């Protein structure tokens, strides 16, 4: 086949163009978040003292962390889905949640007596946290990964890892509603580990599934 002949075939295929990739990704995120929320409502549920918790800054701070994680990861992912250089600004944006987390850990060190540290760190539900965050992240990760296959990421492993972070942002936000451990120590250790698990899975899948 000559190149001109290939061009004739491509031109005949003009009308089968997919929806813009960013719109597809938003649909995947919304779909994944809805499924994860249903799993949460049917199988997990909010903590019993949720009304009181919503008035405490330590509980609300968990949402600040998980939602900034979600926002920064999604913003970067929308760029990584397209070919080209990794946008430095969005890459730097990924540092916002860890910085906020470290700030809260320092505050905790200053405010809480050291005798209570180990209890704050271990909390009540460390294992549940490690299981539920990946579980609640699974549907968003699957939906986003599937959609990224229709994208054109020139850094497949990075795109997969950032998709994992975005999905973990959804999973961790839902889990935070259930979790009764609000200490930044606990969040740093266990949420951090759980989010890392989802990110590694995303990177692994990205390296395998997102080549084009």
């Amino acid at each position, binding site marked *: *086949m000559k190149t001109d002949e*290939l*061009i004739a075939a*491509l031109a*005949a*295929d003009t009308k089968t163009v997919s929806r813009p990739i960013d719109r597809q990704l938003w649909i995947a995120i919304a779909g994944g978040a809805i499924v994860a929320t249903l799993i949460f409502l049917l199988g997990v549920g909010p903590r019993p003292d949720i009304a009181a918790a919503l008035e405490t800054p330590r509980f609300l701070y968990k949402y600040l962390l998980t939602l900034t994680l979600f926002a920064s990861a999604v913003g970067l992912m929308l760029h990584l889905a397209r*070919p*080209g*250089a990794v946008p430095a600004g969005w890459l730097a944006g990924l540092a916002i949640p860890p910085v906020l987390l470290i700030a809260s850990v320092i505050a905790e060190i200053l405010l809480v007596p050291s005798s209570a540290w180990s209890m704050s760190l271990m909390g009540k539900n460390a294992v549940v946290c490690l299981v539920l965050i990946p579980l609640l992240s699974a549907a968003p990760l699957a939906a986003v990964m599937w959609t990224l296959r229709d994208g054109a990421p020139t850094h497949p492993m990075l795109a997969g890892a950032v998709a994992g972070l975005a999905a973990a942002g959804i999973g961790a936000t839902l889990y935070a509603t259930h979790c009764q451990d609000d200490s930044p120590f606990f969040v740093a250790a266990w949420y951090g580990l759980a989010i890392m698990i989802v990110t590694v899975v995303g990177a692994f899948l990205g390296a395998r599934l997102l080549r*084009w």
Partner: protein
Amino acid sequence: MAQVTREEEWSALMRAAIDGDEAAYRQLLESLSHGLRAATRRGFVQAGAAPNDVEDVVQETLLALHLKRHTWDSSQLLGPWVRAIARHKLIDALRRRGRRIEVPIDTMLDFLAAEETADDLDRQDAARLVKELRGRQQVIVRAISIEGKSIREVAENLEMNEGAVRVALHRGLKTLAAMHRKDHE
């Protein structure tokens, strides 16, 4: 200045193509293929790879541009997006041929101005790939590309409806792109 207006013209052609303008799309792909050929050839030379399947990589890149055109942000110029895909495909093609190299970005920067026409000897690979398409897909891709038939003519000849021909053509092109990727591995 010529470069700037040309870039804008390309962006306008792609916008028209995404709205369904077949003639604009053909004009754009023809225009891009000359520069892609020059850049790919230069990349092969820089990597010390034999240039005898440059045309194969040009075709693989055109297929990628086609199948991924919804990843272009239409508020931006088209050129940088084309360069990023061309560079990705060139590096990938060289790697599969056992050449692990960094393609300098400037190889892609000025290629758009270049003009280079196809060499008839360069396309055995591509012809072989079409032969590997299955049944209907091969018949339809061959009829529309090599025989230059329209969708309607193919539909009449094969007694299919036009929608089914379009679907088969699209699947055939996707399969071709996947075969390029697996080739040389």
